[in-house]
């Protein structure tokens, strides 16, 4: 009780409260703009924390992280371009809702379920931090490989009508991420001797290229051909989800929050995997019209709940083991170390008030996110009044600047151009782009964990079936890959039978 009181005193100081608000705002802004992301925001605020006390410093970092994770949904929904990799799954249904004139509903729902997911994950974290940390500690490379493979199997659900084209897209994404320096051996791969290609293709740059550039080209083409539809102001209203909508998606949100928390607790996974797995789950389980994939509210609820639930999950290995789950939490870890707070079991013993302060910071940050977004939705929605072709010009500038800002490298701008053209060409060839993202996100982890597992087992492939979690994930992945193919085969056969039945009566008559 005394620890809680001390923590409450720390977090209610003016500096700490201001840090929460400022950090949340910065995170929201950076998360909303494709290419900037909260990782850049965190890198920018980290030097500021030097001058602050420990609690405001942690507050600033965590709030920026949380704000950024939520902010990615804004551009995902309004523009069809994810602000962060975690919001890529939200684009699928969120942007379709915007095109149907339901932008405000999608945004309002995203804000509420994001807060819900974050708070649920915080609750789970508080109740189970020690137990979950032990579970995560047991996940070795074989288990993580199996989990990531299962994550890739969601390609089947994201391929639309064509599994083959979806797999082609996923393979292209996996291939792109092999360019650069090999993580394990440090060997140059397909760099052709150039230093710039050694950097490889940055994931964020690839995201901008795959989502933004085709959008820009399409907007220019539509305007050039005189087909641009003006957005009527009357179409855009502030609209929070109805109680009925929230109620009908409540259990989906709970499941996705738990999914996100569990995945966040495993280092190396994170928001994008949680979001896509949750989305695939919603696609299978959510009922109602329209179906998930065609602009359904459940298609926004699932990924947004899961990717925000990851924030609580990532804190578990971060605080309990000192293992950052992703680049963003690595920066948060740096901030903790700067202030003499070494994560690990000793942190719970020597600084229990800091741990409690973290819990309060997360609660306050999500409240701040909720209020800032609810108050700011009117402003965000106004973006739709800007003619699409002018917005596309602005997006071109932001994307080029964003691509440059990732690594302060003009090579990334050129990469964005090349990948963007490739993406548009693929789109015109009816190759879906979403599975490419999955390949880009999961490729490095898949290869790294696969090879690491084989190194540890001295080349024995049985390592992948030697633990229960690995077997479960591999079995699930096999089932998910096999089911659509089996269904297609059955359909082909039944059509063949029907065709023969039609031919037979004609022969007999």
């Amino acid at each position, binding site marked *: 009780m005394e620890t809680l009181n001390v923590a409450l005193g720390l977090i209610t100081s003016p500096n700490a409260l201001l840090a929460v608000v400022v950090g949340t705002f910065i995170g929201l802004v950076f998360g909303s703009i494709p290419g900037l992301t909260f990782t850049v925001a965190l890198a920018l605020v980290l030097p500021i924390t030097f001058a602050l006390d420990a609690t405001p410093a942690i507050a600033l970092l965590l709030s920026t992280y949380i704000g950024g994770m939520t902010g990615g949904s804004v551009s995902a929904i309004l523009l069809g371009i994810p602000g962060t990799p975690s919001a890529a799954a939200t684009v699928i249904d969120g942007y379709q809702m915007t095109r149907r004139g339901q932008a405000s509903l999608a945004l309002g729902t995203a804000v509420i379920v994001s807060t819900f997911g974050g708070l649920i994950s915080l609750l789970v974290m508080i109740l189970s931090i020690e137990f979950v940390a032990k579970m995560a500690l047991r996940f070795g490379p074989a288990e993580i490989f199996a989990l990531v493979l299962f994550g890739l199997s969601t390609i089947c659900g994201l391929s639309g009508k064509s599994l083959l084209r979806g797999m082609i897209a996923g393979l292209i994404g996996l291939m792109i991420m092999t360019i650069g320096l090999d993580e394990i*051996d440090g060997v140059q791969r397909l760099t052709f001797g150039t230093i710039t290609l050694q950097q490889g293709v940055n994931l964020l740059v690839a995201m901008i290229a795959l989502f933004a550039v085709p959008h820009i080209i399409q907007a220019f083409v539509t305007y050039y051909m005189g087909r641009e539809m003006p957005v009527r102001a009357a179409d855009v209203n502030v609209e929070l989800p109805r109680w009925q909508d929230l109620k009908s998606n409540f259990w989906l949100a709970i499941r996705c929050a738990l999914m996100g928390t569990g995945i966040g607790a495993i280092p190396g996974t994170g928001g994008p995997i949680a979001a896509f797995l949750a989305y695939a789950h919603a696609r299978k389980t959510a009922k109602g019209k329209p179906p998930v994939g065609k602009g359904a509210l459940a298609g926004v609820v699932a990924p947004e709940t899961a990717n925000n639930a990851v924030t609580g999950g990532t804190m578990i290995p971060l605080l309990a083991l000192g293992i950052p789950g992703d680049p963003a939490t690595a920066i948060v870890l740096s901030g903790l170390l700067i202030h003499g707070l070494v994560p690990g079991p000793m942190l719970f013993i020597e600084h229990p008030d800091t741990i409690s302060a973290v819990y309060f910071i997360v609660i306050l940050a999500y409240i701040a996110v909720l209020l800032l977004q609810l108050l700011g939705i009117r402003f965000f929605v106004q973006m739709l009044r800007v003619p699409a072709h002018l917005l596309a010009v602005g997006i071109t500038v932001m994307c080029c600047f964003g691509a440059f800002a990732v690594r302060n490298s003009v090579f990334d701008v050129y990469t964005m151009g090349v990948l963007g053209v490739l993406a548009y060409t693929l789109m015109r060839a009816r190759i879906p782009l979403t599975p490419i993202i999955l390949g880009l996100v999961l490729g490095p982890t898949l290869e790294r964990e696969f090879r690491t597992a084989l190194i540890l087992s001295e080349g024995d492939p049985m390592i992948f079936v030697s633990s229960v979690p690995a077997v479960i994930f591999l079995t699930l992945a096999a089932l998910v890959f096999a089911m659509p193919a089996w269904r297609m085969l059955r359909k082909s056969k039944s059509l063949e039978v029907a065709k023969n039945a039609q031919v037979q009566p004609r022969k007999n008559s």
Partner: protein
Amino acid sequence: MYASSRERITGLVILAFSVLWIVAVWQTIPAGTPGTVGPRAFPLVLGGALALMACILIGRTFRPVQHSADSDMNSDENAGPAADGYVNLWMVAALFITVVVYGFAMEKIGFVLSTLLVVPAVMILILRIRSWQRIVGMAVGLAFGCWLVFGKILGAYIPPGIWISLF
């Protein structure tokens, strides 16, 4: 009825790309230590898998289309209007050139000046907008707006330019 030739072309292009990929991987990436999964393995397997998928895609174009089972061949999920062919090509080329020029200019003369030049060029040459108020407003608004918000308020690094560095 047979699937469109576009499907076949797509398959052939992907097959050609995957063959080139396999050749490049084989020639430029070492295999690694014998008995281990080296740096060449993954790119090679991925290239092989893509070649296989491309062959299946091409193979499907040589059989009659059954409307339900092969519905993906007739899917318009990602296709745009066919009549936009030349316009699409022009826009792809124009945007690619814009991005390359913009990136080059950003590095040489800085973000603000390059934005002041590129935005009007895009609006006039690509979009054929003639309203000078919109052109000036967009160029100045984007250039100085980004410089102010990201450079000054948020402290992000704005490329200053190597040849000319005004901001």
